[in-house]
């Protein structure tokens, strides 16, 4: 089975520019409207920044919460909203631990990141000026962190 890739944000590099939100809405909605961005920037004052989108949870709480079975899990781990079943009740928004779902004020149905399926990879990752976003697996993230820690230990020993 292919490992799931999600959008990972390096919180040290993320400066809170929110351009990921502009770009997402432009590609997904064909207009500039960051309230419809699938990825969301969160700042915890004074200096903590992260941009977060759907985490492709192993046991998606949003799917469990939906009373109308309007959310489906796809093979790659992302979720698909069945718009004709969704009535915008928002239980999935409450259930998600990461704020990864949003309500579209116009269509009254929810939406979540589809990782720019059908494109060359997520557009937010492509445009992030700080290289803070990466489309990668959690295994790779863990591996990189381990490598970084060991490199530092080796440098200090030398």
């Amino acid at each position: 089975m292919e490992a799931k890739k999600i959008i990972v944000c390096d919180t040290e590099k993320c400066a809170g520019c929110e351009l990921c939100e502009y770009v997402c809405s432009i590609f997904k909605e064909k207009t500039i409207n960051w309230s419809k961005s699938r990825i969301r920037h969160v700042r915890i004052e004074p200096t903590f920044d992260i941009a977060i989108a759907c985490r492709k949870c192993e046991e998606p709480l949003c799917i469990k919460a939906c009373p109308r079975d309007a959310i489906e899990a796809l093979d790659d781990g992302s979720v698909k909203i069945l718009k004709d079943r969704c009535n915008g009740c928002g239980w999935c928004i409450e259930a998600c631990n990461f704020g990864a779902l949003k309500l579209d004020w116009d269509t009254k149905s929810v939406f979540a990141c589809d990782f720019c399926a059908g494109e060359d990879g997520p557009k937010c990752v492509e445009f992030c000026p700080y290289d803070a976003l990466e489309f990668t697996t959690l295994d790779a993230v863990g591996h990189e962190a381990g490598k970084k820690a060991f490199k530092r230990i080796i440098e200090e020993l030398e």
Partner: protein
Amino acid sequence: MKGYAGKFLRVNMTTGEIKPDTLSEEVARKFLGGYGFVAHTLYNEVPEGTDALDPENVLCLWTGPVAGTPVPVSSKYIMGAKSPATGFIGFGIASGGIGSELKAAGWDGIVITGKADKLKYLYIQNGHAELRDAGYLEGKTTWDTEELIREELSDDEIRVSSIGPAGELLSRLANVTNDRNRQVGRSGIGCVMGSKNLKAIAVRGTGSIEVADLDGLLELCKDLYKRCRGPATEKYRVLGTPANVLVHNRLGCLPTNNFQRGTFDRAEECSGERMLETMVKKVVACPSCPISCDHVNVVKDGPWAGAVASVDYESLELLGPNCGVSDLGAITKANQLCDTLGIDTISAGVTVSWAMEAYEKGYLTKEDTDGLDLRFGNAEAMVEAVRVMCLREGNLGKLIADGAARAAERLGKGAEFAMVNKKLEWGAYSLRSLQTATLGFATSVRGACYLRSGSYQPDVKGTVDRYTLDRSRGKFVFDGENLYAIIDSMIICKFTRGIYKSNDEIASVLRMVTGFDITDEEMIKTGERIHNMAKLFNVRFGASRKDDYPPPRAFDEKMYDDVSDGAVIEREKYDEALSGYYEERRWNEEGIPTIGLLDELGLDATLGVK
């Protein structure tokens, strides 16, 4: 018209009435947005004889056509009014989330008149706008105000611009803060808000923003973002503007001890290099910014442990070396007090340094300073002086709350070392060892700053001899002002000016956003028109040649300094340079625009001269 929302709000604080008004395409084409709209609104709507604190003063907030687009550093807004500090055109430009949010809410701007009977705040949510009770926010800092409004309205994404207690107490130096680290800093806009009983403006927008050529714009933006990470912006990203401290010190143009000297013996201790090493927690960005210049200090130990502030060069310099202070903890604390209690850091630093010189000369006693030993270099005294200034507290606070010029008036002496132009405090650029800068500062329509012209550039690039002036210097100021008027009207951040290959590339951004078929020459002409519009406001309220001079120290005292020893501005050379600037501008010898020029620019020529 694309880019623009095409409408703005009119708010009458006296009656509580709020209604929409249309932004005409003619005004948009002639004045572009931002600064252009402020100049146009104030010239046409502030009645004759209005004082800055009268309810009839017009307070306006404008965005430009690029706000809300992915153009780098475009989430900007400007607030303007007749200034309580200068009596001339007052305004300040800030970034953060307000500019883009207001555009997303469907408004280009807000024009506010009148005065409410009690403290209110304006809440705009898309097409809905109302004045809400702000009694519970009275006396609150700007940071607390933002949090409390978000709590009250159960919405963490609301953007808030607010005044602190200094604005409520009508300090003529009061600023407006949004997104914690960003300020409409100078010329007392916070005071005008306070005079209208307007505590805050809160905005939430979820609409779409349309531009003429989204694909073309995004393609250019992708490249612009890359350029924003390159050498053109390196200085802002790494050390930030505090990098200027050691270099200005090296050049003998670091204002020290109320602009008496140009070098500071403890410059290393408060340098940008030291700040990055010891105090900067992170460098953050404003919405839409790929550069990231916001150096957020968190003081870890010492008497000011816990102080948090975004510290830039001028704040650092004027609260620091200009007060003889090298303690970065104290400087950060004073900066935070200014941002939260609501006073402009530049005016605060130069007012405190005035008080320090007055104290050292014996003009102020310990009774006048409420016991503070207000000598140059006393960090605790500097911080306390800033605090009481913000709160109008005690003898000292009451004396200095409205700036150095008014403090000297109140005291009856010390006017000769109040470092002001048009009664607004001078920025952190040495008078006598950066003389083209001085010409730009003194002729600035807002008073005492380079933001209208970037006039320090020929001095620091070595293009001219910075220790003297001649008739040709006016051209630098003229060219700078016309381009900067466009930057301040689009509105984009001046830190992005270096990423554009040409003026035509900037014009192409305007074309792709608005759909206006504007060339780079037409764009610069528009800048000239906007600048003259702002100047006409000043002329209407009595400005003339007499208001375009630096403070007396520039002429009357030679610098006693390690590097710039003996530097002084020769009065005849300054007059020659000033006349040269007016000539370049096609104004008369009094600095009044000529009728021919005003007709050419399509402006009201009533106040023009032959």
